[in-house]
């Protein structure tokens, strides 16, 4: 767990430093739509870009407008402060409009801050629909990305290497799914904070090292007997992008709740799904990364998103759903309101909160709302109990 915590809480964790010492390249990417397997196949370390360790916003605020989510601003802030100096390349995707603007804002900031734009800086376009034309477009984009990586880094990414990469990643995906199975049991033996840290670690650590560590950890988890969920409410955490362990800790430190599941783009949502290991590897990657993605940036997928959330609520036996959205995150702000409407209608308590991204920001306000929400679930359970007593009497 130590190695996961290091990877989850430090922008340049020990694993990245060790990789760099071997003289091998590192490429950062911004969104869950980027197939990390491509980089693994080229012996490049893919690292998901994060905004933790930000202690100011003077660079981020200079190049972004004021009405933009603070997550891409934090990435730019870190870039401006040289925290991403270990990157040999960066891939920017239009996960949302704020993230798309990171492309031009980072380039512009690079004119004022020497050396903050990596030598390889690539805009990877992702369509908003996965059907027909959208899928064909995405496959083309993946092929273009492969060509570009091959040319810049002077590597060869063959179909065989891609298939081997898919197989290597699937090992970790299966293990994460095992954790989800463990969490679906009546007694949970692992905190949501630890699971999230382990999941984030998978987005920054060298994959083989990660899989090895994850296997050890899952084996140990299976032997655990002590329940951490006794007398606690099982809750789900969903909404805007988050890679903040602090947010999970804030909820679990109340000692009244355990996070039994999440639906976050840094989380197990996609990482827990396997990719087809036979057939054309590029199509398999596209099927997974675009085809199974139902985050709110995808058009016309609300029903699928709601169905997935309901399935995850059921699987995790969650008694309530905490929905957070980063200020100015239109995608999740609107989506959370719809989720709240539809889940409350079927009796699932929901808490909708808007917040800033960044460690410890809004901690007091968040805590108050979370405590009140857990008390609401308390009262609901007491009501059920008193009804049951009345019936039995």
């Amino acid at each position: 767990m130590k190695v996961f915590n290091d990877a989850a809480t430090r922008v340049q964790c020990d694993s990245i430093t060790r990789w760099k010492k071997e003289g091998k390249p590192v490429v950062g990417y911004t969104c869950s739509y980027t197939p990390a397997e491509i980089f693994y196949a080229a012996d490049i370390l893919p690292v998901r870009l994060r905004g933790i360790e930000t202690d100011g916003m003077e660079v981020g605020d200079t190049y972004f407008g004021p009405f933009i989510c603070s997550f891409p601003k934090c990435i730019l802030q870190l870039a401006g402060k040289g925290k991403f100096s270990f990157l040999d390349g960066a891939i920017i995707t239009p996960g949302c409009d704020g993230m798309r603007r990171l492309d031009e804002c980072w380039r512009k900031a690079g004119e004022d801050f020497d050396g903050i734009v990596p030598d390889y800086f690539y805009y990877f376009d992702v369509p908003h629909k996965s059907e027909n034309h959208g899928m064909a477009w995405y496959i083309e984009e993946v092929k273009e990305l492969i060509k570009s990586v091959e040319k810049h880094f002077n590597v060869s990414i063959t179909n065989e290497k891609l298939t081997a990469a898919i197989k290597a990643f699937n090992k970790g995906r299966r293990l994460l799914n095992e954790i989800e199975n463990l969490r679906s049991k009546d007694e949970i033996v692992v905190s949501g904070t630890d699971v999230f840290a382990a999941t984030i670690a998978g987005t920054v650590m060298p994959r083989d090292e990660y899989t090895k560590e994850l296997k050890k950890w899952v084996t140990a988890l299976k032997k655990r007997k002590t329940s951490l969920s006794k007398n606690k409410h099982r809750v789900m955490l969903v909404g805007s992008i988050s890679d903040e362990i602090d947010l999970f800790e804030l909820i679990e430190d109340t000692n009244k709740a355990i996070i039994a599941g999440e639906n976050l783009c840094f989380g197990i949502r996609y990482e827990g799904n396997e990719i087809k290991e036979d057939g054309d590897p590029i199509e398999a990657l596209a099927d997974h990364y675009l085809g199974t993605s139902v985050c709110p940036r995808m058009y016309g997928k609300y029903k699928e998103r709601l169905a997935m959330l309901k399935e995850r609520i059921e699987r995790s036996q969650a008694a309530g759903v905490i929905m957070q959205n980063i200020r100015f995150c239109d995608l999740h702000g609107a989506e959370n309101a719809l989720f709240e409407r539809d889940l409350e209608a079927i009796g699932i308590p929901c808490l909708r909160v808007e917040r800033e991204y960044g460690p410890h920001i809004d901690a007091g306000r968040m805590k108050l709302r979370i405590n009140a929400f857990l008390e609401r679930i308390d009262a609901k359970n007491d009501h059920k109990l008193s009804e049951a007593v009345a019936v039995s009497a």
Partner: protein
Amino acid sequence: MNIVAGCDVGSLTSKAVIMKNGKIIGSHIIKSKPRPKDSADAALDGALAAAGVSKEDIKYCIGTGYGREKIEFVNEVVSEIKCHGKGARWMLPTAETVIDIGGQDCKVMKIDKSGNVGRFSANDKCASGTGRFLEVMANVLNIGIDELGKLSAKAKEPITLASTCTVWAQADVIKYINSGVSIEDIGAGINAAMSGRVAILVNSVKPEGDIFMTGGVAKNIGVVETLEKLIGRRIKRARKADPQIAGAIGAALLSAEKVNGNGRKVK
């Protein structure tokens, strides 16, 4: 003697209530001190003096408010959202929607017949729509916060504040003062701006049944009346107690439930 207490340490004021057999026998409001612990001690001491009982007589005490974690004498802490729901229902037994405007935030909640909170929403944006907004504006006008509410009734042409940002609105108010606009028109504009922010939150929760308002701002008649117009619903009044101490009342009522074993388990 079943004497219980509730202590609500807010960002602007701290309140304590002592109850005996469901009735308030003492309460006290103070301006919050820098340290929540000192605020709680002073509020409780005042309430004890008013009730004529000693700390040792209190069977159970619940703390609430933003400083709740730092109160030393309480048996447990509960969120102010829950406490205001409970206190509101006690003050107005038909209340189903509660608007609580505190010093640094504003919450709207739906409650059931026991005062338990169902869906709720809280302001997430900034200080506008909170008691702090009114306090800042009253300071600029050089009047007491209690006087601000009465200005709306005397206004002829209330000003419109261009920004809901507290700091910018303050600059706007200074501009109106300098250009000779009457204090009544400025005050009415401030109350209307406040109501406008709160109305957004109220509408987002879709109020049902009787609406009741708690927190210090409930005493600002200018805000309450403008808010009624904006949401198109009457906000019920209750004379049973000061709405500013609703949170502390709720905490005391929850304490009483613990003592009486009223269906709730003692953790």
